[in-house]
């Protein structure tokens, strides 16, 4: 590290978070010659700087009492994101009560320096901490590289070995992969079902890797026996059975690695994967749970895959037949709980195994990539990972900026929303918002109901189906707009899964939605009066009668008497004004549940439900419609029909009302008439029976 102060190397960066400008500048004065200094004047700012600069911050000097978010808040966020593991923190505080000191250390700070501090000591501690972390990081990288290499190699060795066995066996090569997949599915499901068999994830992964070695003993079984097309003789079968013991011996004879968990598991599996639950298997005749669960599961997987694959001595059975044969006990007895598991995972098996051939291809690809990467020895694995991550981050922020979407990330603990820069700008909010459920700005913007509903939707998802779509309104800069939020809940890998938060995006669908609303409005309303048009009213009336089968309704249609004279005397514009006035009167005299519409020309329609006296209701509306507009005297003729007279077929109703209107006109206009049977033969006003376009009467 001798180049630390060299001119060419970038200087390390220290973040100082303190709300007092004085305190920050004292520290900057002391450290600014050797380090780059970034200042934050409160906790929220510190967090956003940490987020932005990540590991390029070499040290955080943190004050405890600060506005917005205090030092403990910053430490909590750092723990949550595990930044605390990479960025050392020195707390400088006058809060040197032991509870504070203790809490700070518990949250992972490296040093706690009380005010007033000695400049020399502070300086020395800063330098030491940074050096120590740099050294530690190099060591971690070194160890990580070695582990990475070791895992690569052992994975590779297991693959090679098991493929040799399969090759000799004349098997497809998929067998090992299938066993692994089946073993994994069964073990995981077994854990869900019965806590007795609940294994830690690392052990499951170990058993799955070891399962590949179950048949290594077959290496020393003569090829004629292994690949004999017909039935084996008793002697040949006795020979074949030996592969279990031979495999186990091979592992036991390994000069090293006897204590490796992988070898121990592989031994169990090799030796006992032909044992049966009732003690009738080989080689040791173990019974029940004397057989390790690893071997029990691999045994079942082995049998299933053997049944469903083609072998020299047999055709492949279908999945259904294979499962049935196993459940019927034709392949020996298995643990009853394991049988239950098989039944329960049956539906996903076929799908999962089909994926194996793809997985295999991608695994080979992965290996090639890994080998390619390993050739570049100057790159260590962790640097590589960092580079990849950095690359991903760049890609993400590039697309986030381009997409003009509001993207967000929400974490439950600490309760915090992070917005994409575009999103924050568009909403006029900070990029980081603590405690969104109690944040007044968000409350005003979304309304607490919307936020809660969205949160509930996300929380009621499952890890399998974590996505939700939610349309809602928000206030942006005082304007109410429709937005669509598509979110994905983040569930932990634990059992049961915990809700960790969510990521998602919110897009502005206001224009689209307004256009659709306008189209709907246009299609359903009369443009002059704003009342429903006849088509839409017909639909609504049919729906209403459908919904309320017990209701009694009346349909009235009316038109203006002598309307033509208004037109002749005052002109077209006046005619429109009268129609608008009529529509207004109509709106005022109808009730909430009534349906009013303009049928066409000067004809209108009212549909209403009544309790006892239809005539009283009609009388009231009729009276309210009469009057004068400017000096034009308004008088209407109205025909009414009740559903209890003609039933609820709309066309029949309309026709009858029309006939009643005709009758009203015939009786001298300016009145209403209820439909009765005497009108059956009447002409109608709107739909003339004689087919002429002229109205018969006006």
């Amino acid at each position, binding site marked *: 590290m001798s180049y630390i102060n060299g001119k060419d190397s970038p200087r390390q960066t220290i973040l100082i978070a303190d709300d007092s400008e*004085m305190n920050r500048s004292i520290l900057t004065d002391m450290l600014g010659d050797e380090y780059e200094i970034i200042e934050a004047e409160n906790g929220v700012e510190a967090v956003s700087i940490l987020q932005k600069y990540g590991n390029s911050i070499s040290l955080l000097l943190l004050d405890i009492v600060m506005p917005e978010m205090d030092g403990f808040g910053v430490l909590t966020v750092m723990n949550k994101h595990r930044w605390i593991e990479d960025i050392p923190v020195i707390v400088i505080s006058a809060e040197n009560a032991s509870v504070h000191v203790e809490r700070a250390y518990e949250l992972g700070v490296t040093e706690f320096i009380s005010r007033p501090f000695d400049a020399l000591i502070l300086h020395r501690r800063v330098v030491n901490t940074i050096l120590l972390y740099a050294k530690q990081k190099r060591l971690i990288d070194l160890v990580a590289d070695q582990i990475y290499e070791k895992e690569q190699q052992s994975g590779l060795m297991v693959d090679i070995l098991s493929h040799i066995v399969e090759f000799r066996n004349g098997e497809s090569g998929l067998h090992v992969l299938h066993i692994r997949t089946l073993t994994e599915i069964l073990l995981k499901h077994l854990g869900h079902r019965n806590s007795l068999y609940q294994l830690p994830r690392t052990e499951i992964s170990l058993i799955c890797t070891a399962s590949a070695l179950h048949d290594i003993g077959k290496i020393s079984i003569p090829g004629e026996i292994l690949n004999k097309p017909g039935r084996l003789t008793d002697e040949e079968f006795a020979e074949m059975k030996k592969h279990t013991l031979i495999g186990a011996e091979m592992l036991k004879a390994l000069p090293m690695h006897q204590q490796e968990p992988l070898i121990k598991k592989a031994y169990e599996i090799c030796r006992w994967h032909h044992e049966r639950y009732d003690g009738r298997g080989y080689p040791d005749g173990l019974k029940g749970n004397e057989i390790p669960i690893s071997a029990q599961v691999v045994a079942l997987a082995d049998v299933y895959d053997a049944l469903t694959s083609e072998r020299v001595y047999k055709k492949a059975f279908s999945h259904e037949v294979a499962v049935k044969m196993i459940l019927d006990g034709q392949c020996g007895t298995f643990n009853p709980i394991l049988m239950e598991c098989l039944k329960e995972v049956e539906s996903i098996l076929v799908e999962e195994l089909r994926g194996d051939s793809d997985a295999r291809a991608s695994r080979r690809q992965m290996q090639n990539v890994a080998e390619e990467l390993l050739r570049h020895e100057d790159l260590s694995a962790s640097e590589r990972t960092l580079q990849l991550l950095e690359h991903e981050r760049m890609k993400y922020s590039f697309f986030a900026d381009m997409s003009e979407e509001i993207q967000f990330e929400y974490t439950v603990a600490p309760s915090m929303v992070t917005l994409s820069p575009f999103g924050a700008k568009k909403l006029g909010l900070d990029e980081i918002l603590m405690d969104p459920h109690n944040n007044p700005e968000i409350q005003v913007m979304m309304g607490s109901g919307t936020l809660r509903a969205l949160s509930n939707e996300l929380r009621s998802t499952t890890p399998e189906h974590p996505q939700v779509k939610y349309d809602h309104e928000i206030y942006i800069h005082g304007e109410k707009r429709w937005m669509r939020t598509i979110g994905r809940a983040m569930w932990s890998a634990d059992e049961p899964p915990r809700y960790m938060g969510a990521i998602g995006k919110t897009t502005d669908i206001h224009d689209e939605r307004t256009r659709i609303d306008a189209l709907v409005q246009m299609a359903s309303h009369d443009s002059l009066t704003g009342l429903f048009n006849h088509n839409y009213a017909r639909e609504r009336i049919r729906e209403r009668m459908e919904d309320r089968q017990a209701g009694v309704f009346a349909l009235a249609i009316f038109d203006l008497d002598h309307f033509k004279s208004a037109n002749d005397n005052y002109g077209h514009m006046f005619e429109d004004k009268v129609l608008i006035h009529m529509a207004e009167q109509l709106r005022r005299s109808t009730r909430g549940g009534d349906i009013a519409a303009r049928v066409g020309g000067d004809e209108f329609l009212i549909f209403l439900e009544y309790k006892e006296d239809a005539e009283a209701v009609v009388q009231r509306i009729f009276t309210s419609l009469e009057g004068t507009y400017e000096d034009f005297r308004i008088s209407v003729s109205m025909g009414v029909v009740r559903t209890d007279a003609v039933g609820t077929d709309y066309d029949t109703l309309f026709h009858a009302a029309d006939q009643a209107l005709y009758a009203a006109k015939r009786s001298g206009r300016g009145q209403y008439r209820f439909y009765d049977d005497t009108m059956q033969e009447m002409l109608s006003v709107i739909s003339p029976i004689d087919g002429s376009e002229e109205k018969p009467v006006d």
Partner: protein
Amino acid sequence: MTLKECYAALEGDYEGVIGRLRSEKMVQKFVLKFLNDKSYELLEVSMAEKNYEEAFRAAHTIKGVCQNLSFTKLYESSHRLTDNLRSGYGAETDGLVRQVSEDYKQTIAAIEELQAGNPA
């Protein structure tokens, strides 16, 4: 007026601060900077607005700065005020604020005299 005389006038610990921060030049620079520190104003405003949480933070900042600069007298009164405000406004708060105000004025007067002798 020398820095040492200034510390005597504001009843601070001159030897202490030089011992810790090592450089007389640096100490003087920050002592002069204290004139621009807004924490005292923030304390007054917050008290007037009865925003005692903000007042606590302001007092706490004054205390921290004074501690750094070994302004012993103002440190002690702001320390007492900080502790008092930690649990919110109380019967003794106003008295403690008055004491801080008095000590602050004494401190500022001393520093202004120092500044007069050392124009920037």
